[in-house]
């Protein structure tokens, strides 16, 4: 296995007697906060839930960091905690969200996309409103996937993980990664059919 790029920082955290939100742990946090937040947001589909899930993720990392034994990459471990925290939170909140006004408010927030886009790679050939509408439709299609297919889609297309990294994160075999991704594509193909037609042919 290739050396873990975070190993030095992790060892420094593990050797700190009282690990607080400063020093090495703060550096780790800064390194992973955007990644964790994006995974949590795309899985939960809600900025509020994404914040809660991210907080829970880093709380868990802080608690369990001393027990991390480098049996996998640190990034895979972090993603795994984030995915599980997000799925659990979404499951807990599902009935409440469907029954309450929060669902309406969350929908408005995700449509509004309050947060800054810092990725300069994204091209914007269309107007902001059209782009926001398109993103909302894509996010809704992702929300309709099962938790397993949603996780693999996010890790592959939002976080750009390789098949090996996804397998390590989700603790599944390479074959399972491929078959789940194929099923995710199949489901998204169906869900996004109108969008595909409009975007590529319209």
């Amino acid at each position: 296995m290739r050396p873990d790029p975070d190993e030095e920082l992790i060892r420094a955290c593990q050797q700190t007697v009282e690990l607080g939100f400063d020093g090495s742990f703060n550096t780790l946090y800064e390194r992973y906060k955007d990644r964790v937040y994006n995974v949590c947001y795309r899985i939960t589909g809600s900025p509020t839930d994404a914040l809660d899930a991210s907080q829970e993720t880093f709380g868990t990392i802080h608690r369990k960091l001393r027990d991390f034994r480098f049996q996998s990459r640190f990034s895979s471990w972090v993603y795994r905690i984030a995915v599980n925290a997000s799925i659990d939170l979404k499951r807990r909140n599902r009935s409440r969200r469907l029954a309450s006004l929060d669902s309406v408010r969350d929908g408005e927030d995700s449509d509004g996309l309050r947060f800054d886009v810092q990725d300069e790679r994204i091209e914007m050939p269309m107007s902001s409103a059209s782009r926001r509408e398109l993103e909302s439709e894509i996010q809704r299609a992702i929300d309709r996937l099962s938790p397993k297919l949603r996780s693999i889609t996010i890790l592959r297309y939002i976080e750009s993980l390789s098949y090996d990294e996804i397998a390590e994160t989700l603790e599944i075999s390479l074959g399972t990664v491929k078959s789940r991704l194929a099923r995710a594509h199949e489901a998204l193909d169906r869900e996004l059919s109108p969008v595909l037609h409009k975007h590529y042919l319209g």
Partner: protein
Amino acid sequence: MTSPDCEAFRHSALDALESSGGHPAGCDACAAWLARQRQVAGLLGMLDRFSAPEGLDRAVAQAVAANQRRAQAFATLEPRRAPNVLRRLVQEDVEAGASAVVARSLAGLERQTAPPELALLVAERIESDRRQRSQGVAPGARPFRDGRPSPLVLVGRGTTPLRIGLVAAAALLIFSLPPLMRSFKGQAEGLRSLPEPRVQLAMVTDIDRMDPLARALAAGVSGGVVDISRGSQAAPRALEGQR
């Protein structure tokens, strides 16, 4: 339905979304599928990546502080040694097996108090029995629907109805057994090894001395004349009989 070759190609093609080998060149379905999947991937790639909001910094700082407080609290706890008696208790459980678990579970069951409705039901039953007795019907006997007592019910006190009912039950037993046994004899050979039944004819005046099966039979045959809830003090007199 896709062929195994198409499935294998499609699984591997998603990795790089490039054609793997010459399969798409020879398969229009897979070529079309590949083009479609590239479009799906293109749409997914358009999703924005966000910066974590400022609120996350504060939230994580709070979570970390909470973890530290918890760790400090746990550090002050002194480890406790298991008491010596635990070894004996565990050994007893292991030797007793499942019965120990069952006994403990049963001991923990809550004793129920009788519901208030029970008193009402009992009072109603006592009143119904009293009414039936005043009409000359044995308590518990089922009258006709219009309330007339069943013709099988005999009026009276004492042991006469009891004797009649018992003899009837015994007679039923005696006369029904031979035909049953003859039919058994005509069947498979294995039945021949069954011991010949012995029939004991007993005349008793004390309900309590009767076999429970005979008691229930007598109550049913007599139409409730034989009151199995009451008994007399007379001693039984048994007649031995063999088939």
